[in-house]
C-alpha cells in the first residue's frame, strides 16, 4: 500500500498518468471507446461524434480562455472558418480530406492570429467585445462572400475516403473523430506542462509580473489565439465532413456562447474540464429530449408543456452546477477523488 506521495524529481511530478492503476483504467477506456460503435445505434453514434467535435473545440477555447485568460466570444466563427476552408479545399481544389483537415486548421489559425492582434492593446471585457465583433464579421463573410462560400446555399461536402473505403456512416466517421480527438487532447495536455503552458498561465494570472520576468506577452497571447483557432478549425473541418453540408446557419453566435458555457461548466483552466463540459453540454439536452420523449407516453397531450421545460431544466442544471462548484465539473470530480483517496479515514 502506497503511503505518501513521494516524488523525487520534477519529471515524476509532471507525469500525466502517475500509476499503473490509472494506466490500466485508461486502457479499459480506450478499448471501450474502440468497441463503442458495435454497441451503439446510429443516433448514439451521431451524438458521440458531436461530443468529439465539441471536445476538440472546447479544449481549444479552454487553452485560450482558461489557461491564457483571453475571453473569446468568437469561437464558433473560427469553427466556421475551419469548416468552410475544409469544404472549399475538398470541393474546389480536390484536396483529400486528410490534407484538407490540417490545412483548414492552419487557415483558421491564421485568421485567429489576425483576430488576436487587438489583444495586445485590450484586455478582459474589451477583448470580449473585440472577439464578438470577429464573430459577426466572419458570419457576414460566410453569408455574403458568395464566390467562395456560395452564401446561404451552402456547400455540399463529399465524405472522406481512404483507398476504396468511404467514411459516410456515423460508425465509420466515429473512428476518425476518435483518433483526431485523442491526438488533440493529448497535445493540449502536454502543451500545458511545457514552457508555453506555463507562460499562458502566467499571462492569465499576473501579466504585468509575467512581463517583468521576461515573458513576451504579445507573442504568447498570439500563440494562444493561434492554437485555439487551430483546434477550432480542426473541429470545424471534421464537423463539416460529417454533416456533408456546410451553411452559414451552422455557426451562429449562440454556438460561441455554448462553447464558453462548456468550458465554464466543465472547469476553466483544465483540459479535463473541457472534456467534461463538452460531454455535459452535448449530452444533457439529448438526454432531456429522450426523457421528454418517454414521458410523452405517460402523459399524452402534455408535450406543449414538457418541451419548453427541457430548456428550463437545462438552464437550472447549469446554474446549479455553478452555484455548488464554481470551478466546474472537473473540480467536483477531483473532490470526489480526493474523498476516496483517504477513505475511510477522511473526516
Amino acid at each position, binding site marked *: 500500500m502506497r503511503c505518501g506521495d513521494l*516524488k523525487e524529481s520534477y519529471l515524476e511530478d*509532471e507525469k*500525466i498518468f502517475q500509476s499503473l492503476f*490509472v494506466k490500466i483504467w*485508461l486502457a479499459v477506456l480506450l478499448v471501450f471507446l474502440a468497441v463503442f460503435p458495435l454497441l451503439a445505434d446510429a*443516433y448514439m453514434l*451521431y451524438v458521440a461524434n458531436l461530443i468529439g467535435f465539441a471536445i476538440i473545440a472546447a479544449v481549444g477555447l479552454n487553452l485560450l480562455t482558461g489557461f491564457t485568460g483571453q475571453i473569446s466570444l468568437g469561437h464558433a466563427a473560427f469553427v466556421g472558418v475551419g469548416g468552410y476552408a475544409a469544404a472549399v479545399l475538398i470541393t474546389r481544389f480536390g484536396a483529400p480530406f486528410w490534407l484538407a483537415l490540417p490545412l483548414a486548421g492552419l487557415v483558421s489559425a491564421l485568421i485567429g492570429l489576425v483576430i488576436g492582434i487587438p489583444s495586445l492593446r485590450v484586455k478582459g471585457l474589451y477583448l470580449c467585445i473585440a472577439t464578438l465583433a470577429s464573430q459577426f464579421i466572419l458570419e457576414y463573410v460566410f453569408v455574403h462572400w458568395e464566390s467562395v462560400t456560395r452564401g446561404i446555399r451552402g456547400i455540399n461536402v463529399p465524405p472522406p475516403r481512404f483507398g476504396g473505403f468511404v467514411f459516410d456512416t456515423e460508425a465509420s466517421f466515429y473512428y476518425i473523430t476518435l483518433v483526431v480527438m485523442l491526438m488533440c487532447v493529448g497535445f493540449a495536455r502536454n502543451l500545458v506542462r511545457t514552457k508555453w503552458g506555463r507562460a499562458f498561465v502566467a499571462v492569465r494570472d499576473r501579466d504585468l509580473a509575467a512581463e517583468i520576468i521576461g515573458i513576451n506577452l504579445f507573442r504568447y497571447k498570439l500563440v494562444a489565439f493561434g492554437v485555439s483557432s487551430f483546434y477550432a478549425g480542426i473541429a470545424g473541418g471534421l464537423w463539416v465532413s460529417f454533416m456533408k453540408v456546410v451553411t452559414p446557419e451552422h455557426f451562429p453566435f449562440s454556438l460561441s456562447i455554448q462553447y464558453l458555457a462548456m468550458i465554464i461548466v466543465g472547469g476553466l483552466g483544465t483540459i479535463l474540464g473541457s472534456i467534461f463540459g463538452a460531454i455535459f453540454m452535448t449530452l444533457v439536452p439529448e438526454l432531456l429530449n429522450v426523457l421528454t420523449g418517454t414521458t410523452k407516453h405517460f402523459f399524452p397531450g402534455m*408535450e406543449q408543456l414538457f418541451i419548453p421545460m427541457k430548456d428550463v431544466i437545462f438552464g437550472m442544471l447549469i446554474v446549479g452546477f455553478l452555484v455548488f462548484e464554481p470551478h466546474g465539473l472537473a473540480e467536483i470530480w477531483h473532490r470526489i477523488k480526493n474523498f476516496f483517496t483517504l477513505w475511510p479515514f477522511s473526516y
Partner: protein
Amino acid sequence: MLTYEKCVLPLPPPVKGGGFQIPLPSRERVARGGISDGKSSGKLAHMHVRVNLSDSLVGLLGSLAKSVSPHAISKEAGLMRARGFLAVFSLMLVLSMLGPAPAQDVIKIGAVQPITGRFAFAGVNINAGLEDALMMANEEGGINGKQIKYIMEDGQYQLDVATAAFKRIMTRDNPLIMYGESTGLGKAMSPEIKDRYKILYSSTSFSGELADVAVNPYIFVPGPTYADMFGILLKYIANEKPGAKVAFFYSDTEFGKDPIPFARQMCKDLKLELVAEAVAQVGAIDVTSQVLELKRKSPDYVIFQGFVVEPVAAVIKQCRDFGMKTKFMGTFWGATKMIIDNLGPLAEGYMAVNPYMYWWNDDVPMIKKIKTYSAKKHPSVTYRDNSYMQGFMTGLIFVELLKRADKAGQLNGEGLVKALQSLKDFDSGGLSAPFTVKNNKFPVARVWKTNVQKKIWEPASDWMRLDK
C-alpha cells in the same frame, strides 16, 4: 487527521484571497488557478497527504462507486472519461429501452416541427394540421386498414436541434415519411435522404432548392415554391399595371433570398421595372433606412419575402405615414390573418399569394370537414390559419401517396416516389385547385386581398397555374 508530509518541492506559505488558489505542491494544481476568486476546496486544500488504498480495495470500490481514485490528485483524462462514458452509456441504454414496443401493421410518419422558437406560432398550427389530416385518415379506415402513427419532435427552428431530432426519429422509429421544419434542415438532410434513408420528405418550406426531381427525388413541396409565388404575383402586377415599378423587401436568410434571383429575371421578362431591393433582419425593429429608400424610389408595388408579421407591419405603417401610395404584397407566410389583426386599417389593399382556401370558406367541402373534426377533437379552437392548411394539405398528400403505394404493393420510399410522380389532378376536396405534380412541386395558387371590415381574405384572382 493524517498529515504525513514528505515533499521534495518547497511549500510556499498559504496565501488567502487576491484571486489565488491556496497553493499546493503539484504544479498542475497551480495551473488550474482559474479566473474566479480563489475559493478553497475545503479542508482538502490544506492536506498535503496522499494516502493510497490497496489495489484490491480500490478495485472493489471502483466497481461499486465508479469513482475511486487510488493516487495523487492529478488529471487523468482517461480515467474520467471511463467513468463518465460508462455512466452515461448505461443511462442511455436504460432510457432507450423505455417506450412501447412497436406494433405490426402500423405506418409511421415522423415530423420535426418548430413547436418552440422563432416560428412557433406557425409550427404549432402546421403540426396540428398535419396531425389532424393523418388522424382523420385513421378514423376513415387508415391506409387500406393500416393505422398511421404520427411521431413528432420539437426542432425549435434551430438547425442543430432539428438535425438531432431528425436522426433520433430515424434511428428509433424508422418511419416511411418524414416532415421537416425549415429550408435549412431540408438542405442539410437532403444528401442523406437521397443516399441513405430513402424516405419521402416534405417540409414547411416552399423553397425551390428542395423541389428538384433530378437532385432530390424524395423531397417534394406541398404547393408552389416561393419562386412560383413571386411569378404569380408579378404576373398579376403585369396584368393590372403593365410596366409598373416593383420593389422587393426580403430578409437576410435562406427563406428570404430563395426566390430573388428568379424574381429578378421574371421582372425583366414581364417588362416590370425593379427599382429597389431592401433587406432587413427577421423581426427587425428599426427599418427606417429601408423605408427611406423605398420612399426615394417610390415603387408601385412592394413584395415582402422572408417575414411573417414583423417588420412588415412597421414598414407598411411608416410608408403610409410618409404618404406613399404603394401597394404591398406578400407570399405564403404573409397570407395570414395575423397581418389583418395586427395592421387593422393599414392592411387595406394588402395582397398575398396562398394556394389553400381559408377557414371561413364554408362552401368548400374539405373546410367543412376540417371544421367538423375540429369541433369534435379540439372544441376550444375557433380559428385555424393558413399554416394549419399547409400542414393539412401535406397530410392529405401523404395519405393519398401511401394509399397508392400500398395498392401497388410497394409501401417504401421508391413506391411513394412513384406514387408522387403519378399525382395528376389530385382532388383535395376543394382545399386547393386540383394538384398535378411538376418537378416535385404543385405550382398553382391564387392571389388574395384583405377585406378589412370583415377581417378576412378574399380572392383577388382565380387559380393561376404555372404548370402548363
